[in-house]
């Protein structure tokens, strides 16, 4: 199989993933977390049985990596206000208590493992910094007597 054919196969797989799965996940933060969860942390390779069955293991892996990078770039370009709203919506979707969620995210910083491999250090540093500020804003909203930040 030539490089071109392989690449076309990956693009078809990515398109399939976008159409069937990612279109159901409207927020880029949720997509980033979902795609990061498809990655085996021991090997760095992405796994998706359905996609691998329709295309190939290799094509599925590369398609997931492409979509992961896409979601990362999208989140990186998201204004802080929108990021706060996305985290808020994510907290609601997980049905966790907002206080517990913020405490855990501030302590464990799970977003650090959600970035795609080979992301440049400035981009990840910038995103982590935005998460830090967004969590501080959400935390302030939970404190009684705090001015109501734009909800």
């Amino acid at each position: 199989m030539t490089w071109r054919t392989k690449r076309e196969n990956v693009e078809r797989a990515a398109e399939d993933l976008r159409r069937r799965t990612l279109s159901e996940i409207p927020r880029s933060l949720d997509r980033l977390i979902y795609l990061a969860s498809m990655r085996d942390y021991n090997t760095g390779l992405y796994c998706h049985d359905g996609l691998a069955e329709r295309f190939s293991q290799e094509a599925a892996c590369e398609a997931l990596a492409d979509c992961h990078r896409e979601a990362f770039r999208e989140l990186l370009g998201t204004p802080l206000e929108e990021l706060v709203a996305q985290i808020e919506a994510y907290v609601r979707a997980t049905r966790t208590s907002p206080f517990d969620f913020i405490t855990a995210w501030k302590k464990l910083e799970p977003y650090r493992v959600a970035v795609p491999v080979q992301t440049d250090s400035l981009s990840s540093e910038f995103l982590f910094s935005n998460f830090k500020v967004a969590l501080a804003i959400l935390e302030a909203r939970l404190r009684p007597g705090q001015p109501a930040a734009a909800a």
Partner: protein
Amino acid sequence: MIPLIIYLTIGALLFLALLYVVARSSNGERAGNDPLREARQAVQTLESGLLPRELIGRIFAREDFDYVASCGSEEICRTFLRERQRVARSWVGMIEKQIGSLRRFHRVVARQHSGLSMRTEAGLAFDFAALLLACRALRVLLYVRGPLAAPRAVGATVAVATRICEASKQSMAFLNPASIAAMGTGPGGAPVL
């Protein structure tokens, strides 16, 4: 006895001088191999990671500060400004590092091997100096007036860095296979490029 001590001292000094010369020449050989690879990497890092407009626009975005200010908490405003300043300073530091690699490349390799004219080389030298000066000024501005106070300086830095990237790519394109081979080969005989 005294002449013997003098001879021994002179001998020791000559030996140390010889060691120094050998160490310098082996460093020079290593530098002849690395700058090209470093320069290609630097151009790639600058183009894909440090100079994209969207990322720079986001780091120095005023709208984020306006939003944070509207939250009404001074503590969050301070956290935000501290974070943005940290990222902005890190950005300046990374630009300086990559530009340093490109300057080394031009010093060691491009002057001997590329077909750039004297005028282009002079322009490039001016750009390097201007950019490093701009980076230092930007650092001071970021420190004194915060991350959102220097949009023009950021724009100017990006413009000069982009120009240097373009000129460096041009220099690399001028390098002919013979000069690449002369600079060294990678494992298995593959060119370092």
